[in-house]
Structure formats: structure tokens, C-alpha cells
């Protein structure tokens, strides 16, 4: 009987410990990487500051270092089937560019259930999604930047999106294009400069 009592007390203490520890504390603090599914990467920085949190959000997109070049056009000729167009190669360098920050050191409060940070200013709350330890803020899902791979994976998606944009812009002037009044475009070196991230760090 005494043993059962001891065992029971031990179990109660254990269960109480688990409950009071909140079934795993929601940890908002750190740097989080988000992607809008298109051409923008977000970096959310959450810092614990006494009984509140400080939040900064930056957005990054790739922009061509110069305006997109346009292939030259020619006036129609009276000689039928005369082809004036020539092949031109366009190299495009995309530079990762930091957009104007929506949030700079904004103060946020932890809610009662400790699963949301209330940012206020009509910006909505930062939700902690327990099942996969991600954050959800303004329609963007954030993963904790536990390694460089998290950022690199998003950058790959952005680079793919920019290559798709180039298809929309230049495919019609490529080898399948049949307009003889425009130069034919060959896409050369497509490069991506991510130094904005290193500068931030």
C-alpha cells in the first residue's frame, strides 16, 4: 500500500512537471526564413526583450543589375522573306536586394497561451505552429534558420522564379521565335549575387 502511494505521488509529480513546462516551450527567439511561394524571401528576427519581444522583418527579391535588355527591331522590308535579324547574347546578373522593411524592432507581446506574439498595428500575430515548429506571420510560413541550407533552399526557389520570368520575357525572341524583324536572343550567363545577405549578417 505504501509503495503504491509513493509510486502514485511520483507519477503525479512527473505529470505536473510536464504540464507546467507547457508541453514544450514555444521558442520564438531566433532568425526565421520565409518564402511567399513566388519571388520574395523574408527574414524574421525575433529577440526576447524583458517581458516582450522585438521583431524585425526584411524582404529580399532579385532584381536585374541593369534594366532588362531589349532585342533590336527592324522595319519591314519590301523584299519578301528578307531576314535582317541577327543573334545576340544577353548575360543577366540578378542582385538580391533588400526591400524597405515593414517591421523594424517592433514590440510584440506573448499571448496567454504562449503560442502567438501579438504585434499590433494591424499587422496580425506571429503564430507558432507546434507540429512542425514553424512560424506563420501575414500569410508567410517561416522555418528557423538552423543552418545555411534553409536560406539556400529558398534562394534556389527565387532563382527558379527569375529564370521563369526570363522565359516569359525572352522565349519569343529565342530559337523558336519566327519574327524576322527582331534580333534573336540567346540567354548567356545568368548569375545571382547574394552579397546582400552577407552584408546583413
Amino acid at each position, binding site marked *: 500500500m505504501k509503495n*503504491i502511494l509513493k509510486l502514485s505521488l511520483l507519477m503525479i509529480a512527473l505529470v505536473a512537471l510536464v504540464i507546467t513546462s507547457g508541453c514544450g516551450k514555444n521558442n520564438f527567439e531566433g532568425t526565421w526564413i520565409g518564402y511567399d511561394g513566388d519571388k520574395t524571401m523574408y527574414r524574421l528576427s525575433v529577440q526576447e526583450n524583458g517581458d516582450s519581444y522585438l521583431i524585425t522583418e526584411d524582404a529580399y527579391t532579385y532584381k536585374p543589375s541593369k534594366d532588362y535588355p531589349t532585342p533590336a527591331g527592324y522595319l519591314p522590308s519590301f523584299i519578301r522573306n528578307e531576314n535582317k535579324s541577327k543573334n545576340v547574347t544577353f548575360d543577366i546578373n540578378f542582385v538580391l536586394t533588400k526591400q524597405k522593411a515593414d517591421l523594424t524592432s517592433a514590440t510584440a507581446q506573448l499571448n496567454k497561451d504562449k503560442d502567438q506574439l501579438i504585434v499590433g498595428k494591424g499587422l496580425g500575430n506571429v503564430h507558432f505552429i507546434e*507540429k512542425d515548429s514553424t512560424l506563420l506571420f501575414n500569410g508567410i510560413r517561416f522555418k528557423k534558420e538552423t543552418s545555411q541550407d534553409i536560406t539556400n533552399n529558398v534562394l534556389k526557389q527565387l532563382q527558379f522564379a527569375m529564370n521563369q520570368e526570363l522565359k*516569359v520575357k525572352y522565349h519569343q525572341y529565342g530559337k523558336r521565335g519566327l519574327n524576322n524583324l527582331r534580333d534573336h536572343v540567346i540567354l548567356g550567363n545568368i548569375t545571382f549575387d547574394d552579397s546582400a545577405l552577407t552584408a546583413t549578417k
Partner: protein
Amino acid sequence: MKRNILIGLLLAFTMMLITACGSTGNDASKFEGTWIAYDKNNGVAELTIESLDKQAIVSMTTYKYKALMDGSSSGLIDAQILSKTGETATVHEDYLLQKNNGAIYSIIGNVTNNRINLSKDNTTMSILYNEKDNTLLIENIVFRKKSDDNSIQKYLPEMQETLKSASIEKNKEYMKNRMNQPTIQFDFTFDDSILDNVQ
């Protein structure tokens, strides 16, 4: 007697533990997963729902083909205007599959019975679960659970055929009263690489 009280206490704490940390009794679970809707004119829509107890995270993405050629670059204008009867002219029509995340993307909705209520920028919307045939309804669009027979890839050939037929018919209509009647051969390509990149 004491023993019964202790067992009762233990049971109560175990229950508390399960209800506090577990995911049983999850109302949103019937919505969970990927759902597909297809419409000949509007393309394919993919609805992804993640269950969060009595809430759900909802994202909708639509897929549509974008024409990469215009009348000049495809060769269509030259074929229709400059080619003569007896000649064969080729037209290149190329399309790129694009996705659009739209307004409903990673939105948290509240689940009540068979409905998820979503709200964004002062507009509300609801997703209704039809238990009779296990489908979801957004306005009049029916979403069915994703499967081998109901996926984005499955509907692409149909979308492509619709575009091909529309181009061929439009050209026929244009050419029917023309003096010159060249043979116009359409050469279509479809770039679906976006699907290889979807995470």
C-alpha cells in the same frame, strides 16, 4: 478506498496530459490534405489544408498556361497574311505553366462542424465539407482529394488540348474568307517545369 482515489487521480492526470499535448478529437482532421479542382476555363486549383486542432492553415494555388508567343513571334501573322495557296507555313505556339498563390495563402481559419471560416482584409470566405461524397466546396467549385486520378498532372493534357483546339479553330475562322488558303501547321510546346520545382 484510498487506492481507488489514487487510481482515479492518476487517470485524471493522464487524461489531462493527453488533452493538453495530444491531437485527439481534432475537428479539422477531415479537411486535412491536398484537394484538387479542375475547370476547363480556369485551370487547376490546388487546396492544401493543415489541421491545427480546431483551426486549419489553408493555402490555394492555381495553375494556368501562359502563352509565350504573340502573333508575330509565333509566325501566325506572316502565315495568315503573307503565305499563298499551296504553301505550308509553320506556327510555333509555346506555353509556360505558371502558378498563382492568390489571396488564400497560409491563412488560418476556424473550424466549426463542416466548415472552415476564413477571413482576410475584411473579406470572409468559407470552405464547406460535404460528408456525403468527401468533397470540399468553395462557392460553386468542388475540390476532390488528391489522388493518382485527380492531380495537377492528370489535368494538364486536357488543358493543353483546350488551348490547341482554340488556336486551330480561331485560325480556321479567320482563314475561311481569305483569298489565299495556305496550309498552316501548328507546332505546340508546353513547359511544365514549375511542377518539378514545387516544394
